[in-house]
C-alpha cells in the first residue's frame, strides 16, 4: 500500500484520535494512564513523521509539493482540504513530531493532577501545529493557526506556575488573536480579488503580478499577514507577551510556544504571496532582527530568573532567523530555516533542563542556586552541551545556522547590511556571555540557598531518555548538516532572488564559497550542483533597495 497520499492526513488524525481517547478516559488519582497513552500516541505520530524524509523526493522540481492531497471541502467559497509538504515544511513536521514525546516525558512528574485535561490539550496543540505546517489552502491554514491558540491558552491558564497565570494566558491570546483577525480580513480580500484560497495558485498569481493592480491595498494586505506572523514569532517590538508566558507555561507547552509557527508562516505565506512587498520591507525587518538579537541578549544578561533568561534568549534566537530570511540570499534563507530547527531543539532542551531544576528545588531564581555541579554531574553535562549548541560552538548545530545567516546578511543587497551584520555578530558574543554566566551561577561557585536545604538527585533514567536525543541531534545536525540542507535548499533557492546589478555567475560563485566555508565537507556534491544549476528565479524589477 502506498502511504504517500494519506500520510499527512494520518499525521493529523493520530493525535486527534489520541486527544479524543484521552478526553473520554476516566481520570483516577495517582494513575499515569493518561501520560502513558499520550506518550504512545506522540511516539506513533513521530514514527509517522519519519515517513516524510524517508520518502521525500529530492529530485522533484523545486516549488512543487509532495505527499499532496487535494480534496474539495466546501464548494462556495472554494475551500479545499489541500495538504502537502516541501523542503521547507518537511523537517519542521518531523521536529514537531520529535518534540511531542519529549514534552510528555518532561511532564511525567511535573503534571500530577488534572492529567486528562493536560494531555488532551497537549495533543490538540500537536494537531494544530502539524495542521499549520501541512496546509496549502490558506483557509485551512488559518483554521489550524487559530486553533493552536486555544489549547495553549488553556494550558497556560490552568497549569501556569504562579497566580498570574490567567492574566498571562489572556494576554497571550489577545496578542495573537487580534492580528490574526486582521489577517483573516487580508485573506478575505485576497479571495475577493482572486477567487481562490489555494496557496500554490496564489503564489503563481503573485509571481505574475495578477493579484490586484491596487498596490496600496496589496501593501496593506501584506502587512496584515506579516504583522500577524511577526507577533507570533515574536519580532522585536511585538514580544510583549513572550517573557510572561514563558514564565508561566509548563515545560511541555513552552517548548512549542514561540518561534517555528510564526517563522514558518512568514516563509510560506508572506514570501509566497507577497514577494515584492517582502523584499521592500526587508531593510526594516533586518534592522528589527539585529536590534532583537542585541536587545534580547542584553536583557538575558541581567535576568535573575532562569525562565526569563530563556525567554529573552529565545527572542534573540528567533531574531537571528528573521535576520537570515529577510536577506533573500540562499545562504540566509537556508541558514534561517535551519536555525528554526536548531533554535527549537536548543530551546526545548534548555526548558526541559530548567524544568528539572524546578522539580528538584522549586525555584527558577538563579540566586537560589550555586555549586550544583557537585551533586548533579550529569545534569551539568547536559546543560553545557545545550549551552554550546545554543551559542553556536563549531561542530554543533547552532554554528551552522548562525554562520550561514551572518554570511547571508553580508552578501545581501539590503540597505546597511554590513552594519546589521556587525551588530548581529555581537549577539554571538553576548549569547555566550549570558549562557555561560548562567552555568556558572547555577552550577559552580558556592552552594546557593536552596541547594543547602534540598538534597537533589541527579538525572533519572527517564530524564536521561529525554535529554540524550537532544545531545545526539545537536552533534548530528552540526556535522551532517547537508543532509538537512538538501531539503531546505530546494526551498531557499527559489525564494532567494537577485537584484539586477548582479551577474548570475557571481551569485553562483558566492554560493559555492558559502558552502565551502561552512565546513560542510560532507556536502553532497550532487546537491551543490543542483543548487547552482537552478534556473534563476524571476527577477524583481519593481523592488529598489
Amino acid at each position: 500500500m502506498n502511504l504517500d497520499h494519506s500520510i499527512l492526513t494520518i499525521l493529523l488524525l493520530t493525535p486527534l484520535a489520541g486527544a479524543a481517547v484521552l478526553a473520554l478516559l476516566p481520570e483516577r488519582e495517582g494513575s499515569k494512564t493518561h501520560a502513558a497513552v499520550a506518550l504512545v500516541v506522540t511516539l506513533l505520530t513521530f514514527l509517522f513523521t519519519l515517513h516524510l524524509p524517508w520518502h521525500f523526493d529530492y529530485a522533484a522540481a523545486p516549488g512543487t509539493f509532495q505527499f499532496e492531497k487535494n480534496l474539495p471541502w466546501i464548494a462556495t467559497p472554494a475551500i479545499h482540504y489541500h495538504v502537502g509538504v516541501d523542503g521547507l515544511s518537511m523537517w519542521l513536521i518531523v521536529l514537531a513530531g520529535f518534540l511531542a514525546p519529549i514534552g510528555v516525558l518532561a511532564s511525567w512528574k511535573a503534571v500530577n493532577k488534572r492529567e486528562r485535561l493536560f494531555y488532551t490539550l497537549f495533543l490538540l496543540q500537536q494537531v494544530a501545529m502539524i495542521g499549520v505546517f501541512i496546509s496549502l489552502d490558506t483557509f485551512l491554514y488559518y483554521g489550524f493557526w487559530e486553533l493552536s491558540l486555544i489549547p495553549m491558552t488553556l494550558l497556560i491558564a490552568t497549569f501556569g506556575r504562579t497566580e498570574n497565570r490567567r492574566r498571562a494566558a489572556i494576554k497571550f491570546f489577545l496578542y495573537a488573536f487580534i492580528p490574526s483577525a486582521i489577517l483573516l480580513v487580508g485573506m478575505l480580500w485576497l479571495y475577493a480579488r482572486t477567487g481562490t484560497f489555494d496557496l500554490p495558485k496564489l503564489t503563481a498569481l503573485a509571481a505574475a503580478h495578477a493579484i490586484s493592480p491596487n498596490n496600496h491595498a496589496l501593501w496593506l494586505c501584506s502587512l496584515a499577514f506579516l504583522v500577524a506572523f511577526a507577533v507570533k514569532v515574536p519580532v522585536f517590538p511585538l514580544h510583549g507577551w513572550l517573557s510572561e508566558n514563558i514564565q508561566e507555561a509548563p515545560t511541555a507547552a513552552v517548548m512549542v510556544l514561540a518561534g517555528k509557527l510564526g517563522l514558518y508562516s512568514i516563509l510560506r505565506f508572506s514570501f509566497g504571496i507577497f514577494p515584492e512587498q517582502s523584499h521592500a520591507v526587508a531593510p526594516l525587518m533586518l534592522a528589527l532582527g539585529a536590534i532583537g538579537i542585541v536587545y534580547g541578549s542584553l536583557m538575558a544578561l541581567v535576568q535573575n530568573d532562569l525562565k526569563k533568561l530563556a525567554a529573552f534568549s529565545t527572542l534573540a534566537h528567533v531574531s537571528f532567523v528573521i535576520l537570515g530570511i529577510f536577506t533573500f540570499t540562499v545562504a540566509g534563507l537556508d541558514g534561517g530555516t535551519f536555525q528554526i530547527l536548531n533554535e527549537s531543539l536548543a530551546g526545548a532542551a534548555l526548558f526541559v533542563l530548567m524544568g528539572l531544576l524546578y522539580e528538584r528545588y522549586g525555584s527558577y531564581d538563579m540566586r537560589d542556586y550555586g555549586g550544583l555541579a557537585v551533586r548533579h554531574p550529569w545534569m551539568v553535562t547536559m546543560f553545557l552541551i545545550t549551552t554550546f549548541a545554543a551559542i553556536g560552538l563549531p561542530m554543533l548545530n547552532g554554528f551552522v545556522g548562525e554562520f550561514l545567516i551572518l554570511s547571508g546578511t553580508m552578501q545581501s543587497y539590503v540597505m546597511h547590511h554590513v552594519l546589521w551584520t556587525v551588530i548581529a555578530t555581537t549577539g554571538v558574543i553576548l549569547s555566550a556571555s549570558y549562557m555561560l554566566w548562567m552555568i556558572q551561577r547555577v552550577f559552580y561557585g558556592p552552594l546557593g540557598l536552596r541547594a543547602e536545604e534540598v538534597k537533589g538527585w541527579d538525572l533519572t533514567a527517564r530524564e536521561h531518555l529525554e535529554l540524550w536525543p537532544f545531545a545526539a541531534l545537536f552533534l548530528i545536525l552540526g556535522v551532517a548538516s547537508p543532509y538537512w540542507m538538501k531539503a531546505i535548499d530546494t526551498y531557499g533557492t527559489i525564494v532567494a532572488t537577485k537584484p539586477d546589478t548582479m551577474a548570475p555567475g557571481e551569485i553562483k560563485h558566492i554560493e559555492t564559497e558559502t558552502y565551502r566555508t561552512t565546513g560542510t565537507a560532507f556536502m553532497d556534491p550532487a546537491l551543490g550542483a543542483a543548487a547552482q544549476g537552478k534556473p534563476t528565479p524571476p527577477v524583481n524589477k519593481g523592488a529598489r533597495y
Partner: protein
Amino acid sequence: MSPNLIAILPEIVLTLTAVLVMLADASLAPGKPRRLLGWVAILGAFAAGSFSLWQLRLVDASGPITAYSGTVQVDAFSVFFHLLIAAIVMVTLLGSLDYFAPPAAMAEHSETARLAYTHVGEYFALVLFGATGMMFMTCSVELLMVFIGLEISSISTYILAGFRKGQGVSAEAALKYFLLGSFATSFFLYGIALAFGATGSTSIAAIAAGMSTTHTPVLALLSVAMILIGIGFKVSAAPFHVWTPDVYQGAPAPVVGLMSTAPKAAAFAVLLRVLFNAVPTLRATWLPLILALSVASMFIGNLGALMQRDVKRLLAYSSIAHAGYLLAAFTSTHPEAVASACFYTAAYAAMNVGAFLVITELSGVDETMRTIDDFTGAAKSRPYLSGLLAFFLCSLIGIPFTAGFFGKFYVFSAAVHGGFTWLAVLGLLNSGIACFYYLRLMTALYSRPLHGEVRGAMARVTPSAALGLAFAGLATLALGIFPGPVLSLVQRAAPKTIPIISSAPSSSATASLTNGQ
C-alpha cells in the same frame, strides 16, 4: 389538501399541539407531573419541522407556494427559517424539561421549581405559540401578516421572560420587555402604515413596484426608518438594545437561549425581505443606517460586555455584538450576502442555545451561579459540561472548526465583497475585543474554585437534557466542519426569494413580482 393549508401546515401543527398541551394542562390535577406534556410539545415541534422539509420538496418540484391571496409564500427561504425555529424550539424544550418539569425527586429541593411546577403546561404551550408567530413572520410577504406574526411571538416571549415566578428580577424583566417591546412594535406598525401611504399597499411585492412611482418619497423613507427601528429592537441592535441585559438577566436561562435566537432569526428574515425585496431601490438611504447600526452594535455590545460580571448579562451584551456582525452582511448586494446572513442566524442559534443550556444545567433551577466568580473552577466538578461550555464559547469567539467561525467568515467576506473592507476590519477587531470577556469566563472555568468548591446544581444531567446539549454541540461542530448542506440550502434560498438589485431597480422589482407569484 388545498394549497392554502399546505402552505401553513407547520404553523397549524404547532398551534394544534399548543392548544392540546394547554387543555391537557388545565385538565390535569395540580401537582401531577407534567413532563409528558413537554414531550408532546417537542413532538409537535418535530412534526412542524418535518412538514417544512416536505414543503421544501414541493417547492423544489413546482416553485414557491403562495397562499391566502398572496400573503403567505413558502419557498426555500421560509423553509430554512422554519427548520431553524423548529430546531431551536426542540432543543430548548429538551433542555428545559428539567428546569420547569423536573423529576419529582429533584423538585423537592427547590422553591422555584415547586412554584413553576404548577404552570409548566403553559410554558410549553407558550413556546409553541411563540414559534408559530415566528414562523408566520418568515413566510409572510404581506407586512400586516408579518406584524401579526410579530405580535404573536412577542407576547409569548414577554410572558416567558417572567416565568421565574416569585423572583423580582424575572418580573422586572417581563415588564421591561413588554413596555419597551410594545413601543417598538408600534414603530413597526407605524412604518407599515407609512409604507401603505406611500405606495397604496402593504404587500411586499406591491411596495417594491410602487416605490419607483410614489409621489411621496419622504413617506417611503420614513417607513423604512420606522421598520428598521422596530426590527432593530427585536434583534437588539444598538441603540435599541437597552432592554437586553436586564431581560436576559431576569428571564429563566433556557428561555434566554430561546429568545436570543429564534425571534431574532425571524426578525432578521423579515428585515431581509423588507430591505432586499420591498425597498431595494432605497438602498442608498438604508445602507448608512445599517452601517451605523452594525458598527454601534458591535462596539456597544463588546465594550459593554467587558464590564459585566454576571454571566447572563455578559452573554446579553455579546448577543448585541453578534447582531452587529450579522448586520454587516446586509451591506453587500452580492447574492452571498443574504446567504451569509441566513447562515449566521443558524450558527449563532446553535452556539447560543447551547451555551444557555449548559448554564441552565450548571446553575440549576435556582440559578445559583450568576457571576464569573461563581463559575470559577466548575471544570473540576463538572468536566464535561464545562468542556462543552468552553466549546460554545470558542464558537462565540469564532475559533475555526466551529459554527461561529464560519458564520463570521461568511458575513465578513460578504462585507468585503460589498466593498466594505473597513467594516470587516472593524468587525474582526471587535471579535478580538470580544475574546477578552469570553476567555475570562473560559479560563475561569478551568481555574481553581474561589471558595473551596463550586456552588450550583450538582444533579446529574438527565438523558433529555443530554440529548438537547448533544444536539446543540453537534450542530455547532457540524456547521463548523461541514457547513455544506446548510450553506447550499441558504444559497438556494437567497437568489430565489430575494433578487439582489443594484441597477435597473424597477425592472428587477417587477421581475421579483412575477417570480414570486
